[in-house]
């Protein structure tokens, strides 16, 4: 597609539930990034995929967070046993490589109640 698509745009879930957030990057972009942004803060890096593999997952806060990109295109961020502190906007970005800017999606606003 023309841009990075993220679904859903908003997600409200109960504490302890499992959620999946989807990112559909720009066709042909091999690099895909997930970020998390809390109110009033800059985006915080979570994980980076180059193709199908997670090349850098150093930003995942704990083992409740997991992400996949099985065919090198669409990626899913999975959060188990959600906590209220997981509430944030989750942003996905894709790009050609590190020498160019990245295209961000509009994000998924996750609210854990």
């Amino acid at each position: 597609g023309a841009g990075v698509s993220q679904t859903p745009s908003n997600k409200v879930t109960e504490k302890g539930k499992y959620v999946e957030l989807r990112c559909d990057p720009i066709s042909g972009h091999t690099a895909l990034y997930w970020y998390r942004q809390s109110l009033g803060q800059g985006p915080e890096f979570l994980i980076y995929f180059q193709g199908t593999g997670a090349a850098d997952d150093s930003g995942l806060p704990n083992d409740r967070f997991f992400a996949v990109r099985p065919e090198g295109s669409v990626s899913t961020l999975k959060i188990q046993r959600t906590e209220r502190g997981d509430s944030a906007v989750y942003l996905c970005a894709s790009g050609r490589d590190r020498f160019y800017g990245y295209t961000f999606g509009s994000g998924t606003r996750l609210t854990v109640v």
Partner: protein
Amino acid sequence: SQQGEEDPQALSIQEGENATMNCSYKTSINNLQWYRQNSGRGLVHLILIRSNEREKHSGRLRVTLDTSKKSSSLLITASRAADTASYFCATVQLYNQGGKLIFGQGTELSVKP
């Protein structure tokens, strides 16, 4: 953790005036990028400056980079009400092969008509 620090945190100006935002970072970089964000959702890439460049222009935007001081500035000339947004600098560290961006806290710009 955030690498960049931006100054000021908030800036309010009149339409037609110039807006200058500053960014400082801590480690050696491959490149530095500026992004704009409206209403806390998707970020839009504005401009990328490489570590061996000192100044770059794009329309009404002018970015400078001083690697000796580990700082950058973004100048928006002849501002418009539509420039009202949050502006973030983000760096790609020198030896990071994955190209992950490390964001600052952002500057909130308000342009009054």
